[in-house]
């Protein structure tokens, strides 16, 4: 197959809405969106609490979180694999090689990003707002909704960064998902494995979707920061 033919076949997959192709794209999006949603629900309040709380070892927690933002996906995958494998502590759940396992792995990758960026955003806002919020009776946990809302544009960018990291990674989902056709096959695992097997049109078609996705994420992030600047003054 020459290069032009590969491109042609890849385009045909993308625009032809090939069901197997769509299934892979849709599973990828489902896994990653679910992971980002969970990481957001857990990470936004946790990050805000960490911004306001003062306790011994707080700086250690912050440094560890910042370090975890750079955790190699394969290591996250390995940890989840060990936890979910039959002899692991959560082995009885039987989740290994399922979409749920992939979601767990991606939550581990996204959560530190969400917590760390939320902590930074909320802490900066708290320093600026502290006097006024305390004056109107919003102290401690009662200040969190205000701070999260006023940090909404920066926080949206944090969630998008998490989405970007999760949708681009391959190591973790490959280890815990196993790239089972029709069940745990995502865009990135398919590209990784089909390229060496020679199904280049499929790999390239998925690559094109990933590029489009990355562009879309960045466009939305750019828009969010532009709208945010309008309110931030």
């Amino acid at each position: 197959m020459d290069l032009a033919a590969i491109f042609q076949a890849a385009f045909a997959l993308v625009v032809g809405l090939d069901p197997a192709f769509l299934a892979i794209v849709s599973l990828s999006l489902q896994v990653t969106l679910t992971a980002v949603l969970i990481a957001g629900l857990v990470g936004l309040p946790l990050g805000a609490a960490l911004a306001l709380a003062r306790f011994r070892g707080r700086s250690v927690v912050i440094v560890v979180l910042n370090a975890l933002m750079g955790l190699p996906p394969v290591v996250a995958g390995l940890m989840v694999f060990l936890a979910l494998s039959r002899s692991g502590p959560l082995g009885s759940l039987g989740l290994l090689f399922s979409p749920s396992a992939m979601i767990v792995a991606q939550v581990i990758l996204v959560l530190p990003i969400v917590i760390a960026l939320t902590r930074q955003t909320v802490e900066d806002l708290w320093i600026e707002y502290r006097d006024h919020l305390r004056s109107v009776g919003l102290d401690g946990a009662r200040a969190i909704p205000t701070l999260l809302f006023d940090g909404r544009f920066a926080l949206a960018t944090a969630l998008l960064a998490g989405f970007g990291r999760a949708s681009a990674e391959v190591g973790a989902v490959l280890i815990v998902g196993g790239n089972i056709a029709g069940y745990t096959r995502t865009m990135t695992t398919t590209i990784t494995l089909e390229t060496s097997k020679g199904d280049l049109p499929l790999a390239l078609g998925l690559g094109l979707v990933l590029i489009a996705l990355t562009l879309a994420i960045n466009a939305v992030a750019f828009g969010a920061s532009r709208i945010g600047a309008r309110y931030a003054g």
Partner: protein
Amino acid sequence: MRDVTSILPLHVDGVCFAAAGRNLVDAASFSVPPGGLTVLLGPNGAGKSLMLRLCHGLLRPSAGAVRWASGAGGRAKRHAMVFQKPIMLRRSVEANIAHALAAAGHSGPERRSRGREALARFGLSDRATQAARLLSGGEQQRLAIARAWALRPELLFLDEPTSQLDPAATRQIEELLAGLVAEGITVMMSTHDLGQARRLADRVLFLHRGRLIEDAPAESFFAGPRAAEARAFLAGELIW
């Protein structure tokens, strides 16, 4: 709508505030009865901001007590504070006011009607939907006052409300403060600006290096203060 029992007078009894082993506010005692505008006067670093924060409850005295005639606790504490640098939430002008009202426990309809009232009262109606942080400095301070006013405080604290403003905006805020006093709101504000104190004060509390040195009606204070430091300050010789 106001409760029958007033939170005033405010009694400040031997209040100290210590940091780093030093009394930054040193055994201050005074009361604030209802009505009028009290100016907390003193050079930079005298402890004016600390004193206002202690009174408003943002700081806890290390000794002594701040007492209100009737409970000023609870969600709607009936005294409010405007800060030196206006603190504007990243929301619209009207949402800034609504937020403070929500924090005080007011319902949605109440927030809207009070918000509209405050915007009209302070000439901000046509700015209602604009982002608060894009207002000019003078408008931001006006919004900060409107936001505090919407809470219907009996006593309003202001910390050097015009120190960041140009003369025109300063004049506007001063007129507005006089209007609040005429409306029956008790005002306590700090300033290091003698001219402003002369224009606005009914009463002067002169603070120097954390100590309350003189507490006098404005007329007699400006006619001839008893304390040597206050005389030096009036003569422009006391810089800090």
